[in-house]
């Protein structure tokens, strides 16, 4: 998906599908508006280049009770 507008619409449809029964029109309108800042965050992240070798900054540590 390359068009952020399309993605925004998809996200809003998904909110309505999953949670529409518990939200009124006013809340749905507020959620639709709140998707703009979320899309801005995603666009900023996606436009920043990464190499394949750039790993997530969370180091998984195998667990053993006697070794912390």
């Amino acid at each position, binding site marked *: 998906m390359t068009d952020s507008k399309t993605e925004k619409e998809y*996200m809003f449809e998904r*909110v309505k599908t999953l949670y529409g029964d518990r939200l009124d029109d006013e809340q749905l309108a*507020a959620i639709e508006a*709140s998707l703009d800042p979320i899309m801005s965050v995603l666009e900023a*992240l996606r*436009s920043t280049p990464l190499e394949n070798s750039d790993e997530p*900054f*969370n180091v998984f540590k195998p667990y053993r009770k006697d070794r*912390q």
Partner: protein
Amino acid sequence: MIYKTIRQLSDAIQSGETTPTELTQISLERLREYGPVLNCVVTITEERAKKQAKQAEKEIKAGENRGPLHGIPWGAKDLLATSGGIPTTWGAYTLREQRFDHDATVVKKLEEAGSVLVAKLAMIELAGGMGYKQPNASFTGPCATPWNLKHWSGGSSSGSGSAVSAGIVPFAIGSETWGSILSPSNNCGVAGLRPTYGRVSRHGAMALSWTLDKLGPLCLCADDCGLVLEAIAGPDPADPSTCGEKWNYQPEERDFKVAVIKDILEGKQEAVAENFKSATKVLEQYCTVDEIEFPQFPYEAVTRAILSGEAAAAFDDFTEKGLAAELTAPEDRYGPYARSLVLAKDYLRALRLREKMCKIAEDMMEGYDAIIAPTSGTTAHPIDQPFPVRRPWAYGDIMGAVGNGAGLPSIGVISGFSEEGLPTGIQFMGRPYDENIILGVAKMYQKRTSWHLRHPEMFQA
């Protein structure tokens, strides 16, 4: 015994001038009198407090000294689990009857240090994780700064800042994911220390964002923050993210080298900027002050995406059960739905960018003891007004984005007042694990200024 520092109170206890029971009684009375005025209290833990005070008194009389916190009353942000039937509400009406059968590690450590838990203090519901846009976002009502009851205490550790500033408790514990210790520090004019991520165990604290949450003290001065941090820091098998070393409070006292980010005062309130400039002049008595410029990078997007993704997961059950519908702030009732749809690949992208952000921060801070900045861009917001609408995700808070995203310690202290009599703050942000350096810089600043010795008139008994 009101508005005395921890060191002063400890000396007074040891010399027999006062007792833990007397201090506890004073705190309990002030909690009852001023708690409802400020909306800063959720639960007064009177029974537990009296028992702990009696125990401390007995030990001190027998010559046993557990350290500077022995017999000192304190308050806990109401996201720290407490046993014995004391509710832990996380600030949410829905969870007002929630109880745990264990104490958070921090609560345990403070008990081991001999301090006396007198109250669970108010907080923004779910630590602000639902995206609140106004001070009225807690089932205990909007919490006021003691400097002006028409203005907000800051959040999400609202009651922790307010109760210390009002002289209700000598110190409190708060938590910060992004701004939740420094904001009440700023608005209430008290010292607030956000430790390095992993310095203090998060076990038993409500999780908002597992890789961003930190617990830290709010006190009358920087020196007190160091004393409290020493008691609560250290490894904990129950929290694998804790760093392996015990931490001792040994504030450095020397000439320092600090940096200011270029254009950091842009858009800041006039009083905030002016007081920051005055504070910088004080710092120049013992610090070299340089200007630095951070490279272009999506700092705020990285930290916000991590926070959003982890908060969506942490409150997934809460959200799916429809429990948000009972939250106080209307926007918190629908806040979690949209961000729960952020894709896993975007969250992981943010984590991959996080490493780059941490390296940029480390490079920028190389050769410096601290980066200084206003603690907040404004003084305390009016208590009955929504927050100003801000540009999407761009909060202009590079210190908060980098500091929290990279897990850096920072301490906020009072830098002066606005014309309306509201406090402003300055923060000292250090490299990871450099709490003794930033505490040293802040302590020396407070030796040269007297802002922290002023207290709100209404609460000076």
